[in-house]
């Protein structure tokens, strides 16, 4: 349901993707239980756009990102990339496809091998995907990319522990973009960083997106950060898309009660506004994905829930152009 009007070609199409994990039973005699982390997720991503995936811990946003890259293999559905369903490909074929699809992780220091120098870390994708490059060509590429992400050339022989979080994230970004990928999945790339550094990294991502013509999937729990960088947004709850659309529309008038609650809970750095606005006070915690409630996943916490919500999962419907949501009661005005 994401911006169909844009004329750019589709880069990635996800259809009914479902990722499940088997959880070992506590007793030998019992069957293992199944946790559905990503449940029947479909969306389309146009080239050059940035898709934000928002949700709270345990909603499946990281699993979705990894299932797209085939770092976790999904059980059902299709991930169509350059005309092929990635779920049908062999490990070797996927490895070659990864040249075009990269990932940036949340913990910048932990995602870098502590025993490799910065230069080696950034060059590693090149040794895999472009083994024919000469040593000097490779060095040139590493130096170019370091300049592009704002690392000074002298850092090339240093080790990850010598870097602050923000700089380490720049190294992670350099490693991701050096093969000139088409798609980068950014999994909470700024969550571990201080506010002042967070802005630097987002500004860098925005700059690289333009320079390299990247398409981004930006996973975050933080609505404000998603708003800064995304064109489109998916809101995930307990593995399901509850609302999707282009950012401007969804952010100006969220339709799903969960999205409304999420907005209403996001802190606003303005004391007068923060005191004035009436907040939706959600009760309780999100349910466990091991034991999802019947019907709509949000119904146990939803103030609009009725009988039908408790029995049948609401279908995804168009709210207005560029916005869709899965809720039986989304047309009712927002309650304060």
């Amino acid at each position, binding site marked *: 349901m994401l911006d169909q009007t844009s004329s750019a070609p589709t880069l990635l199409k996800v259809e009914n993707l479902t990722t499940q994990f088997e959880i070992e039973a506590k007793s030998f005699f019992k069957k293992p239980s199944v946790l559905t982390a990503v449940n029947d997720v479909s969306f389309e991503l146009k080239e050059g756009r940035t898709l934000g995936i928002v949700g709270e811990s345990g909603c499946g946003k990281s699993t979705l990102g990894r299932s797209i890259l085939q770092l976790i293999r999904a059980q059902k559905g299709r991930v169509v990339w350059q005309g092929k369903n990635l779920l049908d490909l062999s490990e070797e074929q996927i490895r070659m496809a990864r040249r075009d699809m990269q990932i940036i992780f949340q913990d910048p220091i932990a995602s870098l091998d502590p025993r490799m120098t910065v230069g080696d870390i950034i060059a590693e994708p090149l040794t895999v995907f472009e083994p024919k490059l000469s040593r000097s060509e490779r060095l040139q590429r590493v130096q170019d990319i370091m300049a592009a992400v704002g690392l000074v050339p002298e850092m090339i022989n240093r080790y990850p522990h010598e870097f602050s979080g923000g700089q380490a994230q720049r190294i992670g970004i350099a490693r991701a973009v050096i093969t000139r990928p088409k798609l980068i999945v950014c999994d909470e790339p700024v969550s571990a960083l201080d506010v*002042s550094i967070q*802005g630097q990294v987002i*500004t860098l991502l925005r700059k690289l997106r333009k320079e390299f013509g990247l398409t981004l999937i930006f996973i975050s*729990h933080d609505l*404000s*950060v998603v708003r*800064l960088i995304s064109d489109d947004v998916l809101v995930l709850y307990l593995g399901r898309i509850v609302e999707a659309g282009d950012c401007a529309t969804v952010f100006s008038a969220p339709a799903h009660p969960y999205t409304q609650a*999420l907005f209403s*809970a996001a802190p606003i750095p*303005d004391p007068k506004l923060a005191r004035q606005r009436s907040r939706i006070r959600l009760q309780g915690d999100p349910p466990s994905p091991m034991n999802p409630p019947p019907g709509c996943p949000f119904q146990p916490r939803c103030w609009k829930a009725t009988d039908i919500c408790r029995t049948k999962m609401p279908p995804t419907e168009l709210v207005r152009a560029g916005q869709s949501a899965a809720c039986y009661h989304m047309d009712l005005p927002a309650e304060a």
Partner: protein
Amino acid sequence: MTDQTQKEVLLELKDYSITFKTPDGDVKAVSNMNLTVRRGERIAIVGESGSGKSQTFLGIMGLLAKNGQTSGQALLEGRDVLALKPRELDKVRGKDMAMVFQDPMTALNPSLKISRQLTEQLEIHRGFTARAASVEALDMLKRVGIPDPTRRFNLYPHELSGGMRQRIVIAMALLTKPKLLIADEPTTALDVTIQAQILDLFNDLTAEMNTALLMITHDLGVVAGLADRVAVMYAGNIVEEAPVDELFEKPAHPYTAALHAAIPRPDQDVDELVVIPGRPPNLQHLPKGCNFSPRCPQVQDDCIDRPPQLETLAPQHCAACFHPFPRREELLTHA
């Protein structure tokens, strides 16, 4: 937002410093800090990692690492808690002042039931019998919004969600009706919807019990809805202190202003994000002048020459800057 200046002083920090002895020499994590907290007041201490915001209050609670040393005074109702013997401090800590930490799992003892962890303080600090303590503790669980408290009373911490655990920790801290509650990033590890619940809880309970709240956080957004007054820390110093509305409307220190402008907003589109270049200084190699001068967009010669002192710019509003009140355009740097 009532006028807080009329109320009685509860805690007063005077020329308070913390120094850590390290193999590479002494590191001053907090330098010559002065702060007044009145009864029932809510103060937010805002800063980034390494600003000294957590150490300040660990020092008051007597919880510094072994190589840490405090100096100056921390007067709680006129009594200097820094000068107390460990035995005397035990009587104050947990009773007159309590603390809530960021990670509720490490704050709770994993091998004890919730019930035991809650009743302990009542028995120690308020001389309750086991039975009376149970009744009181259960009542507090209800007040912090734990659903089905009777059942949860007998669970272990690992059987509860993160939000629920933080409620337990808050219940624990408030059971002894402390005069001062120090909360160190209490919602940082929680999801936004749960964060909102916990902030509401702080709001309601501290008002109800007239407990002063010191909220330590990196998040100015969280501060906006909760605090009466805000102190911004940078590299071990308070660089600005003001009532919350004034701090957001007219930030005097360029660091405060930039920090405020750098926060992405959920309710607005931002085309041009303010970026603070560089990173906080190493506390072992502080600049000669203002600590923020290497990152400041409007730095001038005097800033590099000597450190500015906190000066009062308006009633209750002070900042340590030679050239206060930057305009937003001056903060836009192109990284």
